[in-house]
């Protein structure tokens, strides 16, 4: 085992940096909690019959009046906080991962093609990217939300909120991927293995995806982790501002928005526990992203 770790630089670095290990454990715990929320969570917060107003505003177990039935307390509706958070994290992560996946596929595809083809195509794609950067994510989200409202029948609107939110976040994140993929492709284009493939007369798509793509995955993987964190934050921001998910299927951002109402009335846990949870998730993902960057780019060490 020790030998195996020594041979793989990434593993070796990992076992020698406590902060990265803690971050990995935190991220993994949250991930497991979110994925298995329906089985782990004491109650289903979406099911209105599972909680009662009588249990409303109970503090966490270590405070006075806290009960072990609700370890992290309840909100004003009597919903168990721990269940809300786990289900909220599940939604946040689903939206974050999907948005990041869409953004990376769109961004890497366009960036790779722009770098490979160059010329006018490159110019057009990158100008579109510049325009995208000038639009705030909220505006994009409102725009897509507006379009969706316009074309979708009213009964579907509520269900489409998740999709609209995901698309809005994906659209504001793809530029990062496109820029990085394009720049890395430029570097690879000067490498002789690409010239060898061109010279042999291989198909351009094969050169792009079989030859170049595996060689630029390193920096892209770093952006993926960092952007996953931004996607989750963006979702929280949008939900906090009320453009995101509604109160009956709360994500972490929605929980924080609800908690805001109780900030000054003494029920601190309704705001702070989801907030700390979100901070822990985003910080640990960012630490892992920085670690990946160090592994893939030894010069920055």
């Amino acid at each position, binding site marked *: 085992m020790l030998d195996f770790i020594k041979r793989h630089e990434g593993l070796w670095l990992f076992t020698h940096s406590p902060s990265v290990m803690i971050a990995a454990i935190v991220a993994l715990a949250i991930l497991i909690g979110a994925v298995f929320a329906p089985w782990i969570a004491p109650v289903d917060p979406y099911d209105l019959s599972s909680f009662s107003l009588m249990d409303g505003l109970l503090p966490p177990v270590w405070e006075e009046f806290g009960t072990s039935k609700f370890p992290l307390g309840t909100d004003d509706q009597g919903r168990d906080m721990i269940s809300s958070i786990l289900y909220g994290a599940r939604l946040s992560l689903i939206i974050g991962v999907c948005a990041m996946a869409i953004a990376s596929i769109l961004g890497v595809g366009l960036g790779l093609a722009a770098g490979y083809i160059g010329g006018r195509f490159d110019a057009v794609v990158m100008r579109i990217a510049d325009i995208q950067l000038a639009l705030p994510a909220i505006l994009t989200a409102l725009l897509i939300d507006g379009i969706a409202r316009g074309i979708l029948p009213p009964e579907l609107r509520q269900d489409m909120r998740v999709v609209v939110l995901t698309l809005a976040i994906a659209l504001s994140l793809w530029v990062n991927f496109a820029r990085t993929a394009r720049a890395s492709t430029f570097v690879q284009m000067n*490498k*002789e*293995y690409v*010239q060898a493939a061109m*010279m*042999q*007369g*291989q198909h351009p798509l094969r050169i792009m995806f079989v030859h170049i793509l*595996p*060689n630029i995955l390193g920096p892209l993987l770093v952006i993926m982790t960092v952007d996953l964190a931004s996607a989750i934050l963006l979702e929280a921001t949008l939900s906090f501002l009320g453009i995101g998910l509604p109160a009956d299927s709360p994500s972490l951002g929605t929980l924080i928005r609800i908690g805001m109402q109780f900030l000054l009335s003494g029920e601190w846990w309704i705001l702070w526990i989801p907030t700390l949870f979100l901070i822990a998730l985003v910080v640990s993902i960012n630490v892992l992203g920085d670690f990946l960057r160090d592994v893939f780019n030894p010069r920055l060490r």
Partner: protein
Amino acid sequence: MLRVENLTVKFPSRFGDFTAVQDLSMTIKPGEIHGLVGESGAGKSTVGAAIIGLLQSPGYISDGTMMLGDTDLRGLDQQEAHRLRGKRISMIFQDPQTSLNPLMRIEDQLVETILAHEDISAAAAKSRAIDLLEEMGIKDAASRMQSYPHQFSGGMRQRVVIALALCTNPELIIADEPTTALDVAVQSQVLDLIRRLAEVRKVGFMLITHDIGVIARIADTVTVMRHGKGIESGPTAQVLGNPVHTYTKQLMAAVPPLDRKIDRFMVPEKDDIVTPSMNSGAQAEAWLLSGTKSDPIGLSLSDIDVTFPGVRTSIFRKPDPFVALSEISFDVRPGSVMGIVGESGSGKSTLAKTLTGLVKPANGTMTLGSADLPGGKTRARKHPSRQLMQMVFQDPFSSLNSRHKIGDILAEPLWLYGLVKDQKERQELCADMLGLVGMPPEAINKFPHQFSGGQRQRIAVARALLARPKILICDEPTSALDVSIQAQLLNLLKDLQKAFGLTVIFISHNLSVVRQMSDDVVVLRNGRIQEKGPSEQVYEDPKADYTKRLLELTPTMPSQWMS
């Protein structure tokens, strides 16, 4: 003056301590040029860094003594070492591009260095700087030193670097590959300058280089290093002319001579990997020979011009084109080796790219065998020439896709050109082809980073051969390799060329290498042909002034040293 005894340098790593230099001893007297020669990884640069106290972290000196005059270099604390650096020991680095600060005028860099070490007025420092630059052969120094580094040519910049190293009158200068980045003509001037400084100013030089020709030309004494150990040491003529150690002998045998063509290099044939399961390559050989069109074909170029868009000087005017190649015409006879030689910027690589269709010529025609060869993007992706012409690239570290297994890299031409349909057969043929180029067949399951530069270059040759080509273009195939590996690869290329009747275009900046390889030769300069003809004739009796000068200035060894 400098006395090093039993120097041992270690680098801690996650596999335990790595010994970079072991028990090395040497002395350098004032005015002496001591050459430190060895192949990459021998620990030459580490010795220089240890002496000047700039060992890269986490390396440390574990043993030995280093005395400069009466000063014990190992006993110095940080501050003392800092004062001594630049004052008594200076350094000249390989790349003059990066060893000067691009944002500072030459004057400021020189004056700053002088003032850092001496308590004199700025005006006195400036006049010292002017004198130094003039001594280095820079004319009109007072006004030239107002310029920034990028306004100087490579050779001039290296003179400035030498002036910078000299401006505090050091006793010892460590020159780490000072001429490797320079062209022969400039190299020869810089070497003359170093020689003169050693004689006139009595500065001791430690000249670190991989080029034995440079050592032979100016070093008084030499130490041959290998794997961190001093192999042989003594006066240059004795060590190189009459080597005792087997390694030195091998090294000398691997140096290509400029003054004659030899049949083969007398070096051990195989790289460091020796496995019992080495294939003979017989199957691959038979497969190559059974190619349906087995007779060699030639290649000819007539009046090829290549231009690139230049720098735009005004938004209203089209930029002037930059002419990379101009009126290039030559014929490559079927089954012969055409050498193309020239300095950097002469258009050699552009020529290779034009032939392979990566660059489109502005004018002129190319003919492959009897068929017309379209240039650039007009050459169809399925054009037959894509298979008939294969290329071996300069940089073995970038010419193989590092994310693909060797087996996949090698099999690519086989399926791409539909030469072998069956997947299993392809792998067998690839493994056998590796045997043919002197590699173990197990290599097909490994990745490129598991091999050394020489081994990778063999893999690149195997990839080229697996397309069953008629024409092999080699663009500086050995310039990234050590001499002994270079000799092995050249032997291999010669053997393959003979066995399969390949037409080879061999491009190199190294005149000696081209002489060993080629039947005919073309001398390029600034994109124009200076001279062409049968290579023995060109080397023995050069007609063009440029060729004559090149041949004269290339550092070589006296022929009696090379048995």
